[in-house]
């Protein structure tokens, strides 16, 4: 199963190259990658409910983390959706982008996302799943900000990354706690990270269970845009339309729902789980559906209806009865098909007319007959009209609600109300632009190219086909998927016509009423639109998006304030801040360190004393000198004398380095000498005293540190052992060098990186400031 993830991952970087070589018709060629994955998955059909195939490779066995992948009804269904829609979207992207040179990058990123998303749904290990989960967030960030030259795209991308990223952190914490709870309940570490091993164990008694559940749910909600974390998804519509169709309707936003479905057997035995999911889901379902009606941009309408559907799915998982799970299965698959189709149709409309504003669109049916037909089919599925797959989903949904003991009627009515708006919006998005006998926004509108017709047509036809013969789906996958979500065997027998039992009739009645109401809302759409939009604009000023803006703005202001306070361009202030920070951080630990009495007598000869005194004289002269040249010379003398001290205490490497540094400092100063500003003196005595105090404090702390280091009862064996091991283990007689390049080579690598970055930093600062002044820099 690993190869199914690896092949798209390898194909991703090749995509830009292929596009450059073969042009935009490369879409269908790249689509072969997901098609291959899809075929490999289809081999496992039909799936027997309650069975799965595992594949385990060790990754971090010490922590019980394995590359464990699982194929069961749930992961295969998702895998087929990801690969199937992925293939269609890659084909569509070629037509949508036209000859845009960025097509290669788009295809590459889409393939990378495809790999990550497959990883999420195949993973059986909680932490492997998390890694892929974060990868999808990163891919989404890159794709939302695809048109990165637009500030709006960058802002939206950052918002999505911060919201889903914060949710990802919550998820990670939740997964760690869940593993700890499992390990605390006596499950061996090897199995405590494995979803298949945790299912049905019943961990809810453990004290860590509740916090872990809340954190995991928060993570899933952020990804699947549940209230109040939904606001990033409509903003993500700045992405190119193929991205919106793929990530932000059909697959990535369903990762949260997937996680909830996947963990339902693990976490579902807790009452809190059901309450949280059902209530949040129901609220999201209703509010987002109403908010959709306040939009006029095709993609934003679709985004809000997506949020609403995600809420519905969350609610169904929360309800958790057999019927609810069946409804979730059907609804999820139906939605992925029709919503991806609708997004692609919205993209085609924009492609043909140059606008996505529904108020300006109309009468396109004659110019774009195929797109219009696919739009009609997809909209009917979204509206839940027979005989499409969406209809079966809606019937099941209503029946599942009516079946409940508590709140059943309330939830059913909520779902019905939300449905009214979804129906109206389905008509607004996919019927109105084609049928309405209005003037067309662009008179030269044309049918989309074949590459852009395939996706909507195939997906809309799939909705019709499965709606007519639903038995194909439930036999091949549906029952297996429902069983995987429920953690028990659930057999689905889907039918278009449920007969005449009372529940089915009630559901049918509600269905008919919602269809009628939805049509009525659609007819009143234009009149109601502006009023609703105004109301929601007012509401939006206090919504969670506003909280996000404030938090983000506050953080930026804080960063700016800190920067202004510390980085004012005066070297004197930088030096003072660094030294004071050193003093502040070291005083307390030093005061608690070894008592100084334990410093033994230091052996010293007259020549060492003489060198030390000379160095001191040099330092004092440097401070007192009134010309820059003499100050430089005096500091240089002090440095050289310290090098002599190193040599006297038999540290030749240190001495050589010190001499080199001193020499280079002098050379540098000579090179830039004539460019430095005039040597300035502090005017006030107070300022001089302040500097003296800072210097004295820093010097005292450094001296103290040296004394403490000498006094510390360092195990003498460390240096002895390094010296002993130097030749046999590292084949070197210079212990200093052996430590640098062998024993502690990783530290040296880090320091070398610092050296490199420092050089590049100087280069960047000088060249950038020169460019800012309008002079051309030499590359």
């Amino acid at each position, binding site marked *: 199963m690993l190869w199914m993830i690896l092949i798209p991952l390898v194909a991703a970087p090749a995509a830009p190259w292929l596009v450059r070589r073969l042009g935009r018709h490369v879409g269908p060629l790249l689509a072969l990658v997901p098609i291959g994955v899809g075929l490999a998955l289809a081999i496992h059909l039909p799936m027997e409910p309650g069975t799965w195939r595992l594949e385990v490779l060790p990754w971090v066995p010490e922590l019980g983390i394995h590359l464990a992948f699982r194929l069961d009804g749930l992961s295969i269904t998702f895998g087929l959706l990801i690969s199937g829609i992925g293939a269609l979207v890659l084909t569509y992207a070629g037509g949508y982008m036209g000859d845009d040179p960025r097509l290669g990058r788009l295809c590459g990123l889409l393939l990378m996302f495809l790999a990550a998303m497959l990883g999420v749904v195949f993973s059986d290990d909680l932490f492997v799943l998390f890694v892929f989960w974060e990868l999808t967030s990163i891919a989404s960030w890159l794709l939302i900000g695809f048109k990165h030259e637009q500030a709006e795209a960058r802002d939206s991308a950052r918002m999505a990354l911060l919201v889903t990223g914060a949710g990802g952190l919550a998820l990670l914490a939740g997964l760690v706690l869940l593993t700890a709870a499992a390990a605390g309940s006596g499950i061996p570490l090897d199995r405590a990270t494995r979803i298949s091993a945790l299912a049905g164990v019943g961990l809810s008694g453990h004290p860590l269970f509740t916090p872990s559940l809340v954190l995991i749910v928060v993570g899933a909600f952020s990804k699947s845009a549940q209230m109040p974390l939904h606001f990033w998804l409509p903003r993500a519509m700045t992405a190119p339309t193929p991205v919106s169709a793929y990530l932000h309707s059909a697959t990535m936003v369903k990762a949260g729902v997937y996680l909830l479905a996947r963990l339902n057997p693990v976490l579902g035995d807790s009452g809190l789980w059901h309450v949280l999911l059902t209530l949040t889901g129901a609220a999201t379902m209703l509010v987002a559906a109403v908010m959709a009606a306040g939009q006029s941009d095709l993609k934003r309408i679709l985004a809000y209806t997506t949020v609403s559907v995600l809420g519905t799915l969350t609610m169904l998982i929360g309800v958790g009865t057999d019927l609810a799970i069946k409804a979730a299965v059907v609804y999820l698959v139906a939605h992925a098909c029709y919503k991806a189709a609708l997004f692609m149709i919205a993209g085609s409309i924009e492609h043909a007319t140059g606008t996505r504003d529904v108020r300006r669109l109309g009468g396109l049916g004659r110019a774009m007959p195929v797109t219009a037909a696919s739009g009609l089919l997809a909209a009917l599925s979204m509206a839940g009209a027979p005989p499409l797959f969406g209809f079966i989903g809606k019937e099941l949904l209503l029946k599942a609600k009516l079946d409940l003991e508590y709140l059943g009627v309330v939830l059913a009515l909520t779902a019905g109300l939300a449905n009214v708006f979804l129906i109206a919006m389905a008509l607004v998005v996919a019927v109105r632009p084609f049928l309405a006998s209005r003037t067309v926004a662009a008179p030269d509108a044309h049918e989309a190219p074949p590459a852009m017709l395939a996706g909507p047509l195939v997906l809309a036809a799939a909705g019709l086909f499965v709606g007519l013969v639903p038995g194909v789906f439930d036999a091949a996958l549906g029952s297996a998927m429902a069983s995987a979500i429920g953690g028990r065997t659930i057999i689905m027998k889907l039918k278009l016509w449920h007969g005449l039992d009372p529940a089915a009739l009630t559901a049918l009645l509600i269905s008919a009423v919602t269809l009628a109401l939805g049509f009525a809302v659609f007819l009143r759409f234009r009149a109601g639109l502006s009023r609703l939009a105004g109301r929601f604009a007012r509401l939006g000023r206090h919504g969670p998006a506003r909280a996000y803006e404030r938090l983000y703005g506050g953080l930026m202001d804080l960063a700016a304030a800190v920067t202004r306070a510390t980085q004012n361009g005066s070297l004197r202030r930088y030096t003072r801040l660094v030294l004071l920070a050193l003093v502040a951080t070291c005083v307390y630990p030093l005061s608690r360190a070894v008592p100084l009495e334990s410093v033994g007598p230091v052996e010293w000869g007259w020549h060492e004393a003489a060198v030390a005194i000379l160095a001191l004289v040099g330092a004092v002269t440097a401070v007192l000198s009134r010309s820059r040249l003499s100050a430089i010379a005096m500091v240089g003398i002090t440095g050289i004398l310290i090098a002599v001290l190193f040599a006297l205490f038999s540290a*030749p*490497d240190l001495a*050589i*380095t010190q001499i*080199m*540094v001193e*020499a*280079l400092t002098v*050379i*540098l100063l*000579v*090179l*830039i000498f004539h*460019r430095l500003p005039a040597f300035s003196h502090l005017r006030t005595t107070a300022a001089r005293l302040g500097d003296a105090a800072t210097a004295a404090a820093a010097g005292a702390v450094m001296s103290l540190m040296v004394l403490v280091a000498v006094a510390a009862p360092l195990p003498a064996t460390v240096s002895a052992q390094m010296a002993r091991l130097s030749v046999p283990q*590292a*084949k*070197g*007689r*210079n212990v*200093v*060098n*052996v430590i*640098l*390049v*062998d024993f502690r*080579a*990783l530290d*040296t*690598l880090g320091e*070398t*990186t610092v*050296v*490199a970055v*420092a*050089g*590049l930093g*100087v*280069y960047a600062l*000088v*060249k950038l400031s*020169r460019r800012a002044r309008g002079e051309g820099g*030499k590359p």
Partner: protein
Amino acid sequence: MNSPVFQATTRVITPLLLSFSLFMLLRGHDQPGGGFIGGLLAVTAFALYALAFDARSARRLLGVSPRLLTAVGLSLAAVSGVPALWWGEPFMRGLWLPLALPSELKLGTVLLFDVGVYLTVLGSVLLTLLTLSEE
């Protein structure tokens, strides 16, 4: 600086300094020296040249951009830790070729690492010096 004496001396000293820096680099494993010291020594050679002539001549003498040198050096240092992984050893574990050279020099990944440090220090410090002096 336009001093014929200084320039003539520099022409002689620069190759000597560069050879000495290589010597320090190669002997570092057994005697005082090593990549860092060797790199600094090489910088002084080029810095001296820049003083005697000008920064542009020093760049010409170097032949490649100091930034490229930094990048190559850092990559070399990082890559030298990888071969150990092939034998299941931890990253950066030193590996030696079983070759007896007619000197004290031993060939191995550790030497590669030190060469990387040498190049990084040379590239980065020289980049600083030349950038500032050309400003």
